[in-house]
């Protein structure tokens, strides 16, 4: 890391520390009632207490599980459907209007439908999370498949490559930067919907923990849950960026 980057990094930490100090100050001065706003000290203590008792671990595991299953299901389905639509001009023409109708549909509008059909179950949560997370992946895949350099298809034709080989050796790798970007967006969507589903359906997870803590006016526990959700979002997104960086190493010199 060079000098400038180091200074920026230090500055960004200083800003974060400043916000935490401000939060502590507001809490200490009781500008907001301690019933609603704990200081960072109390939130941290609640976080530690939750971990040592094991309660938070199981909640965290629950949320990660919902998120991971929903996201993986969305990724597999999104890439598969996106590949089929994206690789055919006819399909794009026919399907695009339906997609344009479905895409802006708020996923929250789907939740009552999902609950009516599947009940307050894990299956409902999986469906809702996957349904919400599939859009960025599918649309990115369609775009990636549609944007494959036509010259490469001609190379494939002159090599008499099979359809399957063309998909796996040319179209998928060519679309991979788009697909991975879509998957990164979906990761956030999956986390949000995991929490929403846990709150609505009372499924085991951080969403449920946050809801119960709020109802019981345990503000420190509530904030511990919120902090943990923030960390989860951050860590998964960083992990995804690292994976992207590794998988797209061939792009590094083009940037």
């Amino acid at each position, binding site marked *: 890391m060079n000098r400038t980057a180091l200074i920026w990094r230090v500055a960004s930490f200083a800003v974060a520390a400043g916000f935490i100090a401000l939060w502590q100050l507001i809490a200490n001065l009781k500008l907001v009632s301690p019933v609603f706003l704990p200081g960072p000290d109390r939130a941290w203590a609640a976080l530690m207490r939750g971990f040592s008792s094991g309660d938070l671990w199981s909640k965290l595991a629950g949320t990660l599980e919902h998120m991971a299953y929903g996201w993986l299901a969305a990724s597999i389905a999104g890439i598969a459907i996106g590949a089929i639509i994206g690789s055919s001009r006819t399909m794009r023409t026919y399907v695009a209007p339906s997609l344009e109708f479905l895409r802006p549909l708020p996923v929250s509008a789907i939740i009552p439908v999902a609950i009516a059909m599947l009940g307050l179950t894990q299956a409902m949560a999986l469906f809702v999370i996957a349904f919400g997370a599939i859009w960025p992946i599918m649309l990115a895949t369609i775009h990636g498949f549609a944007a494959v350099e036509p010259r490469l298809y*001609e190379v494939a034709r002159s*090599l008499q490559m099979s359809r399957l*080989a063309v998909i796996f050796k040319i179209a998928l*790798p*060519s679309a991979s930067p788009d697909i991975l970007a879509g998957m990164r967006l979906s990761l956030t969507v999956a986390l949000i919907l995991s929490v929403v589903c846990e709150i609505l359906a009372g499924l085991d997870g951080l969403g449920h923990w946050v809801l119960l803590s709020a109802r019981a006016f345990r503000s420190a526990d509530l904030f511990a849950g919120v902090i943990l959700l923030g960390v989860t979002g951050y860590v998964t997104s960083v992990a995804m960026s690292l994976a992207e960086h590794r998988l797209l190493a061939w792009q590094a010199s083009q940037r």
Partner: protein
Amino acid sequence: MASAAKRLEAVSDTATPQIAFDGVTLALGGKTIIENLSLGVRPGEFLCIVGASGCGKTTALRLAAGLYQPTGGRVNFDGQPMREPRREIAIVFQDYGKALLPWRTAAGNVSLALEAGGMPTAERPARIEELLRTVGLPGHAGKYPSEMSGGMQQRLQIARCLAQEPKTLLMDEPFGALDAMTRQGLQDEVLSLVAASGATVIFVTHDLDEAIYLGDRVIGLLPHPGRIGIELSVNLPRPRDQLSTREHPEFLRLRRQLFDFIKATEQ
């Protein structure tokens, strides 16, 4: 010298064309691009096609590749009608940057052709190394195309085409985007590669000197619609040499004839 002699023999002793255009017409979008083109390319022959832009040179090459189907007439390969592209016919595209897989290294790009040809995994590394050495890229196996110069990328594309072990090599202005020095070097390398493999070549270019320097025969196309306007046999000794060949009286005579033809088509 030995390979050059073998080449000449290959050109002269077989009369049946490897690629034959028989009254080929191609219309795309209501516009006739090529009209009634008849042309035979003998096995081992090096045929160059020149012409003003828009005369259908590249289209003719794509017909020979099987990437286009004629709307009239027939294109035959070894006496069989061409219905689709085939591995025995390799194409070197002008835009090497688009024709290579940016996510594969040099070795990986060559490997694509070997994979398509069904070569067992264990045999590929040795063959890849050999091909990269042949085109003058030893030691670059691990580089991505984006890390290579234009000349190197075009060499890589040629290596991938050689990996197809083609009977026919189609080249579409392969050196058009390269600087003069790189171009001359690659011209000589292509000549020696072709001499060694005995492949038939159709080479499209807008550089008249290049066409005479490389070819056994040069065909000039007339535009709108594309048809043959001039056909020259190049009786220059092989192997050719950048200095002495280009100073040869026959070279200069052909050059004048071809320039006059192109000038006339542009009026």
